[in-house]
């Protein structure tokens, strides 16, 4: 897994509408620059973010995922982020048990006032994923039906 400078990681970001989406808006309003690799999908709340969406992202070729919402106690809906936090604790544990590379999922709290934090988060995550390389291990399995199949290597 050597870092590849030509490799442009595909990263998808699941963010809540009230804090991180607004924070990313502020990044724009403040004209702070960041890498183009990350595309944002808007959710009402981190509580809405289904773990299956994260799985599907990897299956569809994402090399990394960002999940971000309001800081604890700041949730627009009081406790959606607390529920999300629990879900992520469990999800990370399941993934790690199954051998999925949990370093590729970056969780964060970015508030509506943290435009620069969002830019840093994106840039740092892109750098981290670039260093990890493409998530070929997972994508190869995902392509099973179309291509030759998992057992070619084994």
């Amino acid at each position, binding site marked *: 897994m050597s870092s590849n400078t030509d490799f442009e990681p595909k990263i998808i970001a699941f963010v809540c509408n009230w804090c991180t989406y607004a924070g990313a808006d502020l990044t724009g309003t403040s004209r702070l620059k960041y890498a183009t690799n990350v595309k944002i999908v808007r959710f009402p709340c981190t509580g809405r973010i289904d*773990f*299956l969406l994260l*799985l*599907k992202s990897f*299956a569809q070729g994402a090399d990394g995922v960002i999940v971000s919402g309001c800081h*604890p106690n700041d949730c627009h809906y009081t*406790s959606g982020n*607390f*529920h999300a*936090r*629990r*879900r*992520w*604790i*469990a*999800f*990370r*544990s*399941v*993934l*790690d*048990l*199954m*051998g*999925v*590379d949990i370093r590729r999922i*970056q*969780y*964060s*709290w970015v508030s509506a006032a943290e435009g620069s934090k969002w830019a840093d*988060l994106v840039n*740092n995550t892109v750098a981290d994923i670039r260093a990890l390389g493409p998530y070929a*291990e*997972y994508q190869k*399995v*995902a392509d*099973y*039906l179309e291509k030759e*199949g*998992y*057992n070619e290597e*084994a």
Partner: protein
Amino acid sequence: MKKLRERAAELLSQGVVSLVLGYEEGTKRPRPLFCRNSVNAEKLIFDSRCIHNLAVYITKKELVGKERFAVTAPISTLRSIMQLFVENQLNEEKLLVLTVDLNGELREFTTFDEIAAYVAQFELKRGEREQELLSKIEGMTREERWKFWMEEMSHCFKCYACRSACPLCYCSKCVVEVNRPQWINPWPAPLANMEWHINRAMHMVGRCTACGACGDACPIGIPIDLITRKMMEDMAPEFGYIPGQPAKQGNALSTWKLDDREQFIR
């Protein structure tokens, strides 16, 4: 065992219950018995070989009917029954739970609290097989775990016996049957299998009582029960519950604490 047969016959003949769900001798091991009359009660057995989790049948109205019924339950089944109570799937007025305690005495329960008080004295421990396999998995690197599970998963042909055997998989429409959108492909393929099992583990967080029924049911012997079991062992200290002793209020994932761990959140 004699007391159990007598009591079952009594309950049926007096019309207290319309069905006693229990075990009878099978060809290789005990099998479920749907005992609907006092004559059949003679066939009932209850010993350490009776591990089939009968709780899987008690949420199915077409099997147990609308009348009151009884179920004979070893500890693992009692745990499942407790969790089903928590999930609003059982009616205390329609269920009578029978078990034989360590002294050979017949015990009867009708409420969650009664079962909880009885189950509290039994600690949930890993058996030899679980211990051996789990320590092997725990000793692996992440890449090795991925290879191990992918190898196991590549044999899975999605018969969904695991789902059918699990007393807590009582949904009328499973997520794999949801097709708008089609979250998980229903056919067997390594990734679709992996997604199904990750999904199953997530759905079991805070609910699985480690009865092992899913693993026993797997026709090709994938140790899938270890996934949910390991999750339970890891999440119990994290979320503050005792493995195998479902708490009455709220599931681990649908509740939260202010000081839940968040070191992994940047």
